[in-house]
């Protein structure tokens, strides 16, 4: 089987490549790309005029909820959503039930992800930093690493004990394993439901102070600086957290961070009328934070964009605001929201956009992904994006089992239309009719 992606804009940040040309996939491998690639006798040709041809997208932060919370999402439904979102590799967070603290569970995850009914994307499991995510006792991280985890994390149950965190970092330095940290001082944020600010004051909801996030960022940064551990901060949200990361980078710590689309688009004012779909952790902040976040995306202080895909069934979400769960589904909106709110507004260039969505997260997590270069990935990982497609996001037409997102009905510009992970794993219905040609 051979496929020619013809005449697109090839964007590969791993080699600083931005050129119009074609890309040939043959027998699940990229065989060549660039202005001079021509191919005869290919099985199918996609006319990619005006489209981006990018390395398959990488999501560093996804909750697949299986085992334990299959009513919210499964590995099958979540990987299908990932493929439709343009992703070829997703990092799965360990806050399942039981938590991913045991090699047998990693085998299970990889097995489920490889099953024929799954979405066909690579699932890179992230192990639980502590056993049962109790924040006390380290998991068998060496065994987990041998089983295939790409990082260790306390996502969902932030480690409060700084001594435990320091020891975890020391051991992860030895194992050469990145730590993905959930930055939250729980004593400060406990019981809070939204950003502590003017809106929470008006609504009478208990606020989560920005200090709760920033204290944890500072603590993790200090420990990373002194231990030499590679630290990636999961979805930061405040201007203060951004400035701390900037300082730690300046001081030479091996620190990176991510942001999610809701945090660079929405403010706490979206919570007006107590909309539980806008309840997320960390909470939606303010315009001041968004302004600094945008600047930090531009200057590289924020390394990448993550979905923090957090599915919750509607019966959990349709509750009083305080009782609704934190989280927003994101796999199928990341590209549309990022292009609409960052690329088309001039915050990021197309090459930077692809970097934040693919090359940078692959580099941070040392994944064989994020590049078009043949041989650097096990199979072809390619995503074709129509940057100018205007579409309306309809949550009822998504692959995810859960529908908890405030973006239903949003008018977006830019959509992934073809995803290859080895073979083709997703093709957008609108794209199909207009651009597809079977040659043979």
């Amino acid at each position: 089987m051979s496929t020619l992606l013809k005449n697109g804009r090839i964007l590969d940040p791993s080699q600083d490549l931005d050129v119009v040309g074609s890309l040939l996939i043959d027998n699940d491998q990229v065989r060549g790309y660039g202005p001079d690639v021509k191919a005869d006798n290919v099985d199918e040709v996609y006319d990619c005029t005006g489209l981006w041809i990018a390395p398959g997208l990488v999501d560093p932060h996804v909750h697949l909820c299986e085992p334990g919370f299959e009513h919210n999402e499964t590995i099958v439904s979540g990987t299908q959503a990932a493929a439709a979102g343009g992703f070829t590799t997703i990092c799965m967070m360990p806050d399942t039930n039981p938590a991913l603290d045991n090699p047998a569970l990693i085998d299970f995850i990889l097995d489920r992800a490889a099953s024929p009914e799954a979405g066909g994307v690579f699932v890179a499991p992230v192990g639980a930093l502590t056993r049962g995510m109790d924040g006390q006792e380290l998991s068998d991280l060496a065994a987990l690493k041998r089983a295939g985890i790409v990082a260790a994390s306390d996502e969902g149950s932030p480690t409060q004990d700084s001594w435990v965190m320091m020891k975890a970092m020391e051991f992860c330095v030895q194992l050469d394993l990145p730590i993905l940290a959930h930055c939250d001082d729980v004593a400060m944020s406990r019981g809070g439901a939204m950003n502590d600010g003017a809106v929470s004051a008006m609504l009478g909801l208990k606020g989560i102070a920005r200090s709760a996030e920033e204290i944890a960022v500072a603590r993790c940064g200090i420990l990373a600086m002194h231990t030499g551990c590679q630290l990636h901060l999961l979805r930061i949200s405040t201007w203060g957290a951004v400035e701390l990361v900037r300082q730690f980078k300046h001081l030479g710590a091996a620190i990176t961070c991510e942001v999610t689309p809701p945090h660079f688009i929405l403010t706490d004012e979206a919570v007006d009328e107590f909309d539980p779909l806008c309840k997320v952790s960390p909470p939606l902040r303010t315009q001041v934070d968004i302004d600094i976040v945008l600047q930090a995306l531009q200057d590289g202080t924020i390394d990448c964009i993550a979905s923090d895909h957090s599915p919750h069934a509607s019966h959990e979400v349709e509750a009083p605001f305080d009782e609704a769960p934190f989280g927003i589904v994101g796999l199928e909106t990341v590209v549309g929201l990022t292009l609409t709110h960052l690329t088309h507004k001039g915050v990021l260039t197309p090459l930077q956009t692809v970097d934040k969505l693919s090359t940078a997260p692959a580099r941070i997590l040392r994944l064989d992904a994020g590049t078009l270069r043949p041989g650097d990935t096990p199979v072809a990982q390619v995503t074709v994006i129509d940057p100018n497609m205007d579409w309306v996001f309809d949550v009822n037409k998504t692959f995810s089992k859960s529908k908890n997102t405030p973006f239903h009905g949003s008018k977006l510009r830019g959509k992934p239309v073809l995803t290859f992970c080895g073979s083709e794993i997703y093709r957008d219905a609108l794209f199909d009719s207009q651009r597809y040609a079977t040659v043979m």
Partner: protein
Amino acid sequence: MSAPRNLLAIRHLSQGQVEELLDLGREMKSRVLSGTNSLPDLSHLVVGMLFFENSTRTRVSFEQAANYLKMKCANFTQAGSSMDKGETLKDTILTLRYERLNGLVMRHRLSGAPYLAARYFAGPVLNAGDGQHEHPTQALGDALTILERLGTLSGLRVAIVGDVLHSRVARSNAWLFSKMGSEVRFVGPRTLMPSHTSMLPGDTYFDLAAGIEDADVIICLRLQKERMGSAYMSSVGEYAKLYQINRETLRYAGKDCVVMHPGPLNRGIELDDSSADGERSLITDQVENGVFVRMAGLYWAFGGAPFAKRKQSERAHASEKAKPKRKAKVRT
């Protein structure tokens, strides 16, 4: 009749709607007190009284209001209900909807819970106090009381004293008095004040004397004793020392300043006896007027039209017609 509408928060009401509700409240009162049988007859309506949080005063007040309007009440408490068996609030509301209740009066310990009810119920929802958010009928009753005593709601200086952070009464009253053209001041310890107040209609004072200086109205908030002896405040005594309204501290307020409290009182803490029982206290008037504004709220929410216009001279509180007792002072 107009379309049924919710009464969820004073914040959402226009000045005109507040005036309409207060007009209705005054009219209800005069009709009740005159003893003539001229009250609206809403005997075709059944209203659910959903008190998910303990309440005696507000509950009885709403029931009494419904009685005067000949409405039937379906009482609901969480204890012993299907919610104790794990039913969600959404399903409880849907059940009540399909049992064909016409409206809901709802008290809940969580801010915003009546908004959830309004999303799933077909018919008006009246907020009888939600968490730390709003308590609209309390504010309407307080406003009617002030209107009777001072003749206006505009140009006043209203000091709201106490645990503003956790108080729904503070929020509803602040919105109401500011919408009617009065100056609102929040007075209390820094630890019991929201950290950001820019979207609340009032200025913040931590010092009682400065906060109530020349005030026309002082609204004391109920202190939750459970919160004392914590990081919020070291002790009840410490609070009383700083914020108690008594003969001594009242000297800072305006000469004719009135004192209010939504109840239940912690005598000797928020207020001393002399200010709770004195000439300036409007506490019992607040309770009485609570019934009449809840009648107004029920009637209004079910789409009741304003009663026939009374003479202009009687509409003293309509702010454009009102003669301000004095101009709002410029803060220095």
